[in-house]
């Protein structure tokens, strides 16, 4: 089993590419749904010591977030996607889709649905690239500071490693009204996919 803390630049690049294509596909689905152009930022991949996560993840602001696990149909969990929406963006998104943001429950469930669509699109891309079928679990929803939301995921990953890989990219519309942060937390199984991907390239 390859370990997370020893990933080389090439391997991180492969992960970046895999994430890139996954989120790219997600951005396309979102722009179809919203009828607006959605662009993604250049993704950042970091290998972070768990103890230092508070330097990488915002600890001050409250965000609405959706968490899904990515399950490999053949052999178990491969990682987690955490999709978070700053407050202003969540209202804009709900407004674009619902036309009305007065019902908080409806806004929350819209965000969950968006999380659903983004994670399914992400899984489609990995299926195409790797011929690995990943299925996202139905979304779990929370509104809190990001680091508190993901600590249950991080705990899960921390059983295996003292490091986590964070793949992060931003989805934005051209009017700068909507901003969505997508984070991928691959576990060691996902890391195996990366090696597989590199094997295909060679």
């Amino acid at each position: 089993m390859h370990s997370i803390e020893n990933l080389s630049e090439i391997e991180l690049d492969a992960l970046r590419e895999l994430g890139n294509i996954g989120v790219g596909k997600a951005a396309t689905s979102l722009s179809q749904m919203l009828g607006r152009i959605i662009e993604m930022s250049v993704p950042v991949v970091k290998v972070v010591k768990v103890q230092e996560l508070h330097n990488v993840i915002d600890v001050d602001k409250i965000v609405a977030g959706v968490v899904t696990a990515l399950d490999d149909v053949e052999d178990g969990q491969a990682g987690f996607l955490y999709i978070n929406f700053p407050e202003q963006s969540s209202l804009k998104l709900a407004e674009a889709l619902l036309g009305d943001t007065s019902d908080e429950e409806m806004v929350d469930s819209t965000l969950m649905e968006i999380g659903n669509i983004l994670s399914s699109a992400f899984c489609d891309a990995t299926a195409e690239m790797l011929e690995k079928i990943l299925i996202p679990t139905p979304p779990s929803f929370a509104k809190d500071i990001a680091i508190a939301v993901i600590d249950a995921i991080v705990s899960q990953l921390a059983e295996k490693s003292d490091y986590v890989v964070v793949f992060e990219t931003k989805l934005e519309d051209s009017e700068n009204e909507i901003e969505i942060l997508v984070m991928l937390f691959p576990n060691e199984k996902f890391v195996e996919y990366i090696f597989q991907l590199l094997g295909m390239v060679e």
Partner: protein
Amino acid sequence: MMRNEMLVGIGEFRVAKGAVLKTVGLGSCIGIALYDPAVKVGGLAHVMLPQSNGTKRSAKYADHAVEMMIEAMERLGGKRDRVIAKMAGGAQLFKHMTMDMLRIGDRNVEAISSILDDFGIRLVSKDIGGDQGRTVYFFTSDGRMLVRYSRGGELWI
């Protein structure tokens, strides 16, 4: 930022005499504070997992964190039979939840209570559960613990 503040990262612990120990963003994780009031030595750990299973020592596990913290406090003059404990955290942040593993908060609370029992440490106060994240400050000068909720409001325990 308070004076003499020391940050405790996820899965870490720190021990001090006089300083304010702080840990941010406790969701399902738990902040355990230990204190020896006689010599005013205290420690704070941010634990993520209930039990180690024979793995190498790491403060991410509650049992190891308590043990390591007691040892470090003893080096600063503390005595384990005088140590008391406080804890905060173990919230359930997810409103709609489909993954059972996200329910780790409850398991953490149960495990820590029994670990403290095993060490013979009295739990004097706690603030656990709920649906919000917490940031915790532990004042080693007098043993007070301040819990600040992410959606506002605070509590001294």
